[in-house]
């Protein structure tokens, strides 16, 4: 999933690949995310943020828990991070990915680009932690 504001009429594009081919990980396993960035010609990136986090999805207000966060502002490092790079962390023991009915828990890696004109663009890539089965709706 990507979202953000158009710059020079086109969206940036971020492609990500994971160290696990099926994007499934065990708790406490190391995760490595490699990504590449395609920028519109006139876009100038001011800073980059990379994170690994879980978020809830469903009928409730969305909550997030950031497990790994990195903000890159130094020009040379931004150039390198924008060209394509990798980041990773050791996943925690919880929470596991959960496909509930009114509460779902998802893990993802996010790459967020901040542009000179003040706008930002975020690219989100979901992966799974654990093997909890899909919840079912129980008749009362």
């Amino acid at each position, binding site marked *: 999933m990507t979202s953000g504001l158009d710059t020079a009429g086109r969206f940036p594009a971020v492609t990500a690949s994971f160290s696990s081919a099926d994007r499934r990980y065990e708790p406490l396993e190391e995760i490595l995310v490699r990504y590449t960035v395609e920028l519109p010609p006139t876009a100038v990136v001011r800073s980059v943020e990379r994170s690994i986090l879980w*978020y809830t*999805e*469903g*009928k*409730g*207000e*969305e909550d997030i828990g950031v497990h790994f966060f990195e903000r890159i502002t130094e020009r040379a490092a931004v150039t390198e991070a924008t060209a394509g790079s990798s980041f990773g962390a050791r996943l925690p023991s919880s929470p596991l*990915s959960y*496909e509930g*009915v*009114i509460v*779902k828990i*998802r893990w993802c890696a996010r790459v967020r680009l901040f542009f000179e004109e*003040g706008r930002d663009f975020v690219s989100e890539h*979901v992966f*799974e932690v654990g*093997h*909890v*089965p*899909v919840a*079912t*709706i*129980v*008749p*009362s």
Partner: protein
Amino acid sequence: MSGEPRSNPFATRYTRPGAIPPLDATGQPLDVARLAEDIRRMRGLSIEGPHGTGKSTLLVAISAAFETAGQLGATVRLRQTRDAVTAIAAVGRAPSGSVVCLDGWNVLGSSALLVRLLARLRGVMLVVTSHRATGLPLVVRTSATLALLAAIVARLPDHGRSIEAADLADALGHHPSDLREALLELYDRFEERTRGGARG
């Protein structure tokens, strides 16, 4: 779990205020830039309407427009009567000529008069949401219509034909003045149809 996790397009992350641009009762996008000009000219705006009709969504868009212009003093969500203190503090700290956005004006009760007076003394413009009349000079009224609901659903992630037009009419029929409740009912229908089994 196998395959990609299944997202419910009616989950709050897709329907929360700010996730969808503000739309009018016919489902057409509202001209936020023009509204911002009107606010500057009339020195305030009240967004009035029932629960779940897009008031907070419009407020978020207006707040973002003024923030881009460097004129946003504060944005405050008012939930309880005691939040009147937060509103007073926000207006008290906002620079003169800036805009303070207050979501939930009707909880202020009698403190609303104090907030308005303070805003006038400080030269701060108020943009508020409320279920009832506020007395501010400019008013945008929101309402729940089938056209608006259809336009919102069209902007959500693909539901894979799990939801039909009759479902929208049904949901709005059950919650005639509350789009948020209608969207939550559509959430349940999507889960039932894609997961199997009736809700208890």
